[in-house]
């Protein structure tokens, strides 16, 4: 069965600093990978996804993620964080033929210092 690990429970960065949120997955083949963001009291919004092709994926709000098969990772990055990026970030994995089932990581809470 697939699994997702987000090693960092909390991360604090200063506004304007760069950001990298880590995500590692466990799956025997190439999975489908997603990053979602959850603002306080809100639902989940899709930031970006990787299915195949170019391993560097661009998403909304200036986010990007890079799929690295050798490291089983799909880290999320942003060159310059804005205070409005403070939220909970979830990495998720879906598998081919998995009935569209998503398995989520435990999330990383991002705080932005002004």
């Amino acid at each position, binding site marked *: 069965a697939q699994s997702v690990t987000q090693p960092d429970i909390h991360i604090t960065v200063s506004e304007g600093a760069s950001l990298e949120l880590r995500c590692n997955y466990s799956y025997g083949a190439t999975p*489908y990978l*997603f990053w*979602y963001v*959850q603002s306080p009291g*809100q*639902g*989940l*919004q*899709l930031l970006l*996804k990787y*299915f195949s092709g170019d391993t560097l994926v661009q998403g909304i709000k200036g986010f990007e993620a890079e799929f690295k098969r050798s490291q089983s990772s799909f880290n999320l990055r942003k060159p310059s964080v804005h205070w409005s990026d403070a939220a*909970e970030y*979830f990495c998720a994995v*879906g*598998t*081919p*033929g*998995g*009935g*569209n*089932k*998503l*398995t*989520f990581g*435990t*999330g990383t*809470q991002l705080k932005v210092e002004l």
Partner: protein
Amino acid sequence: DTAVSQTPKYLVTQMGNDKSIKCEQNLGHDTMYWYKQDSKKFLKIMFSYNNKELIINETVPNRFSPKSPDKAHLNLHINSLELGDSAVYFCASSQFSGTGTGTQYFGPGTRLLVL
């Protein structure tokens, strides 16, 4: 025009009661899901319906029963509520893909508190 909507947004009830949460999507998707997010923010799938047919049924107590009257609606009925049922319940929808690539769109969540 909300894509995936849930009612109610908040639900406070006593142990032992029966309650329902409703979900509707206007995206034209054929697959809908229920997820449970616990107090530690861990998000886990409970059920999935494709064209009103149950396709994912994780290990969920029998007290939880999803019902899909049509492909735009997926309701969740919970019998004999317990303290441990307190959580945020999210509905989601997607267009089904046999390859597992359907992107899921989430509703705003229903915050259930069992006293």
